[in-house]
């Protein structure tokens, strides 16, 4: 008699991910789906998908999903949340979406203490358009639009979203995690669970920033890409809890 000890979460569809080898999206999708299964809230969930590689997240998640325009996910989530105060609403966004074109929507949803959760995928690059400089691209990082390496003198400095938002009164849980090791992946899942629980308790705005890999657009193998998270990204974007209201 065999026993199931590991299976695909019910909140994920049977469709294989289209993501590149070594991309972190599939991993974080799975963590989100596991948490939603564990909390038993799939029937009560409305997700907001971004513009970017995760634009087709609705094909993988088995709960209601609304696709937002680039950067507008927090505003769309606000509209859903205000219309359906008893539902669970989260947005899933990348760095270009959340920290460049959607900066105003992000900051003001946070400032309002909107009772939504945001999963923020920070992989320091625009993935879907083929690897352009993102608001979180590290100084010196080569991308299609910073071909000589990001020069802060002409191209500015990266945004530290958790640090920025922690200056506001609205957010109640802000944390930065990574998916470069098994312990960090476990911490990421715990952080997502905590953020979602905060919303379920009506505590207000929460955001989990996840440092992720984009091997294709970084021009690296999946293993080198994971190493880059550890060696280059974590020193620049320190992991930890930036705000936690009890």
């Amino acid at each position, binding site marked *: 008699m065999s026993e199931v000890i590991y299976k695909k979460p019910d909140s994920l569809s049977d469709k294989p991910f289209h993501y590149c080898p070594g991309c972190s999206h599939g991993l974080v999708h799975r963590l989100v789906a596991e948490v939603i299964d564990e909390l038993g809230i799939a029937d009560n969930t409305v997700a907001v998908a971004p513009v970017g590689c995760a634009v087709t997240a609705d094909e993988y998640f088995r709960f*209601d*999903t609304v696709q937002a*325009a680039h950067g507008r996910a927090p505003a*769309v989530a606000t*509209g*859903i949340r205000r219309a359906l105060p008893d*539902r669970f609403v989260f947005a899933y966004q990348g760095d270009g979406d959340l920290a460049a074109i959607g900066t105003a929507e992000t900051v003001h949803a946070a400032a309002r203490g909107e009772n939504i959760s945001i999963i923020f995928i920070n992989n320091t690059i625009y993935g879907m358009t083929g690897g352009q400089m993102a608001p979180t691209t590290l100084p010196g990082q080569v991308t299609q639009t910073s071909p000589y390496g990001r020069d802060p003198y002409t191209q500015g400095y990266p945004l530290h979203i958790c640090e920025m938002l922690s200056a506001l009164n609205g957010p109640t849980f802000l944390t930065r995690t990574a998916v470069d090791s098994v312990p960090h992946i476990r911490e990421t899942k715990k952080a997502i669970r905590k953020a979602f629980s905060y919303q379920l308790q009506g505590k207000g705005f929460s955001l989990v920033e996840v440092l992720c890999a984009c091997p294709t657009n970084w021009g690296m193998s999946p293993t080198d890409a994971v190493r880059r998270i550890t060696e280059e990204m974590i020193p620049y974007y320190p992991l930890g809890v930036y705000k936690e209201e009890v």
Partner: protein
Amino acid sequence: MSETVLMKGNEALGEAAIRSGCRHFFGYPITPQTELSAYMARKMPKIGGTFLQAESEIAAINMVYGAAAAGVRAMTSSSSPGISLKSEGISYIAAADLPCVIVNIMRGGPGLGGIQPAQSDYFQATRGGGHGDYHLLVLAPNSVQEMACLTADAFNLSEKYRIPAMILGDGTLGQMMEPVDFSALPKPVFAEKPWATNAMGGRRGPNVIKTLYLLPEELEATILEREKKYDFLRENLQRYEARFTEDADIILCSYGITSRVVETAVRELRNEGIKAGIIRPVTLWPFPEKIFKQVRPKAYLSVEMSMGQMVEDVKLACECRVPVYFTGRTGGIIPSPAEVIAKVKEIHREVCAVV
């Protein structure tokens, strides 16, 4: 029983929205529509509704997108420059076939323009405004009473046909006070929304609201399907007011506040023995083409507070069988009856000359 009160157009519009079951309003301040936001800010909290002042017009329209996707009656309002900002979201709402009501209390443009009334967003409203093949249902009131009644219609029609509706008013209609009878409001007719992304509890599977189709054949199919709806609306939803058209030599076309000026001008012209008539489109999209097939004037005159935008639709509707003239003022100036009369007399000399 009549419920007549004296109200500003912007406030009457807000009251009509509330009476039509709208409980979600997302705004951003801009003159000359701000009274509407202020009215909603006062009323919504008292009836369990949501008034939210967004960080921008872009955020406000995307909140409407979210609320409409969730299945509630949602509304936003702005004035010309703000509608340009909303155009991104309006395109997405149209692409997702979501119902909502968008109010444009027009002011002079382009750019920041001015804060006085104008009608220079006609192209933006009737041609879509944002990117892609889409239309809005565009309703043009010409009184405070119609501001209220057409708002109620806009919610019902938008929901019935899953098309965003726009109330296209102007600064005068928004700011002026007139008696309005709320008992004359069309009753709300709520449509079933099995498509709403309101969480799947009780449903077999998830609902998805999306606008991305990476396969061109798939995208084309959604556009062709939507076009069928547009064709149905073009055939069945044309609204207009036509007066003195049977024997008219010159028919004046105008909408909104300009039609009130034209009304005065046409009475005066008739008193002077000039056979002038009126066609006042109430739906700007779909444009009321049918009435133009039933009348036989010697010329049309489109009177607008712009450099002449609706004049193109008049030419298309009458298929240029007779000359189509334009007169108007722009930049925030309302044409006077005297200016309109002078133009009609000039046309009359050209097209009705006794040989």
